[in-house]
């Protein structure tokens, strides 16, 4: 509360000092107001805390339980003895495969779809339908994506249960992530730049290639990174489209899987270990979980760092 005093009179005729008076005093009401405000702040803070606490607890707990097994061998050994020993080489490599292949499909399609929506499409019912479709695609349950993958890729396109079928299913599932973040990145490029280019006789595509894309590439990259994290963590869409319970591959060979091979994946492996196999040592389960979670969180952190870095070096 401000406690300014009223300035004493400057007139020489009245030299007596005027009592300093408080402009405001804390009334009963304002004290009560302060109190309710503090209570409100506390309640909402506790609610927020309860929400973020799990993240910290989960990471710490998983890490502690997994600690005994985390070593280089864990990463480079196939699962052994009916999954009750060994490492996670085959599932790890499988996850890397499907992430990369799904990225190769969904990144270009997603970026170009966003380019269409932001740079070509005009406000119309058709554009609205496309946007609604993007929202819906993001909302379709992952298990329905799995059914789609089975119906369309495994049987209709005769890919069988394979790396390719699973990757394509994942690609379609993660498409909205890339479309949404690319659209945001493109929208952040001021319209004046485009108009300036059109005025010099540049075509739409030249403008996009020359100005719009180079200046939104970092935002697009953020979306791509988020897609990676999403694809790495998904289980349901790959369960019936190619991921299998067990497949031994040669350890240390990064080209061990073919496009039409069945494969193991980290997320699927964690599911199997924790529900289908009795007697798995705790550390093995927790180790798999922390590798999966750690990968996803680190990839996300990378996206966040990239975003913060970009915000600090604006080009206009």
């Amino acid at each position: 509360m401000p406690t300014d005093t009223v300035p004493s009179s400057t007139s020489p005729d009245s030299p007596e000092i005027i009592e300093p008076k408080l402009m405001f005093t804390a009334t009963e009401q304002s004290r009560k107001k302060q109190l309710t405000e503090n209570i409100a702040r506390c309640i909402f803070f506790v609610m927020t805390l309860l929400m973020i606490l799990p993240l910290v607890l989960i990471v710490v707990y998983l890490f502690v339980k997994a600690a005994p097994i985390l070593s280089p061998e864990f990463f480079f050994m196939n699962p052994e003895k009916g999954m009750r020993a060994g490492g996670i080489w085959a599932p790890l490599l499988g996850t890397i495969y499907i992430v990369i292949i799904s990225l190769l499909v969904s990144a270009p399609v997603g970026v170009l779809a966003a380019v269409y929506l932001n740079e070509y499409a005009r406000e119309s019912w058709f554009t609205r339908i496309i946007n609604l479709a993007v929202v819906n695609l993001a909302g379709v349950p992952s298990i329905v994506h799995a059914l789609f993958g089975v119906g369309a890729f495994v049987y209709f396109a005769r890919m069988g249960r394979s790396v390719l079928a699973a990757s394509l299913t994942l690609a379609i599932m993660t498409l909205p992530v890339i479309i949404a973040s690319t659209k945001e990145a493109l929208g952040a490029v001021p319209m004046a730049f485009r108009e300036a280019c059109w005025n010099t006789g540049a075509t739409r595509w030249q403008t996009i290639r020359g100005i719009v894309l180079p200046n939104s590439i970092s935002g697009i990259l953020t979306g791509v990174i988020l897609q990676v994290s999403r694809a790495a963590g998904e289980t349901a869409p790959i369960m019936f489209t190619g991921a299998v319970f067990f497949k031994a591959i040669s350890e240390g060979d990064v080209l061990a899987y073919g496009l039409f091979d069945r494969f193991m994946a980290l997320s699927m492996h964690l599911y199997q270990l924790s529900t289908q196999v009795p007697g798995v040592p705790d550390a093995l389960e927790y180790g798999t979980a922390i590798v999966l979670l750690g990968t996803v969180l680190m990839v996300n952190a990378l996206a966040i760092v990239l975003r913060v870095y970009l915000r600090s070096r604006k080009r206009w």
Partner: protein
Amino acid sequence: MAKISNSTKKIEIADLTVRYDGVEALKGISFDIYENEILGIIGPAQSGKTTLLKTINRTIELEPNAQVSGSVKIDGTDVKSIKNVNQLRRRIGMVFPLPVGLPLSIYDNVAFAPRTAGIRKRSELDELVERCLQQAALWDEVKDRLKSLGTKLSGGQQQRLTIARALSHQPEILCLDEFSIAIDPVTTMRIEDILKELRSQITIILVTNLIQQARRLAGRTAFIFENELIEINNNDIIFSDSPANRLTYDYVNGNFG
């Protein structure tokens, strides 16, 4: 209507009407612009001056709710009949009120348009960039840092960069829309000097909110008011005590607007 001797018509505007969602922004405007003249266009805000420029290079088509009727001819060809709109836009340089430096290097800002037009040779581009920056009176200030970002220049420098870019595709017509609104008087004077030099090479349309600027630079001036062309005449008539229309006199002498 006065005619400048020994001049051919560069742009013929006939009965041009533009509506935005049915609201008229230009009402049946007709006049000609001659080769190698500076034509001033004055008038209060919102009277349709910018719309007029946009119809000339057909960027009006990018406004989804604008309808255009009437014709704009350049060298006798209706712009609407030109198939390649980008070729048309390359013939016209545009400078708008707010300077827009593209988020590219200074060099690339100027080289952008020539590159889109297909010029790839480094030596040719170097020469072009230097010439345009010279013409825009920016060369001496930036010649040592052509690689730095165009968007980091000061407002006045960016506006000159915009002019350099508008000149970079070697236009026949240069349109300036209140170019001095965001820059200081000293820079304004420098650009005005540039325009006087350019007059011998290209046709310049100078839309301005500064009546005195039109008086200083233009040979003829058009007065647009409430979306209609009130008068177009030689400057000695427009700025005399007895222009053809009483409104012109009142506007020029600050009685309204």
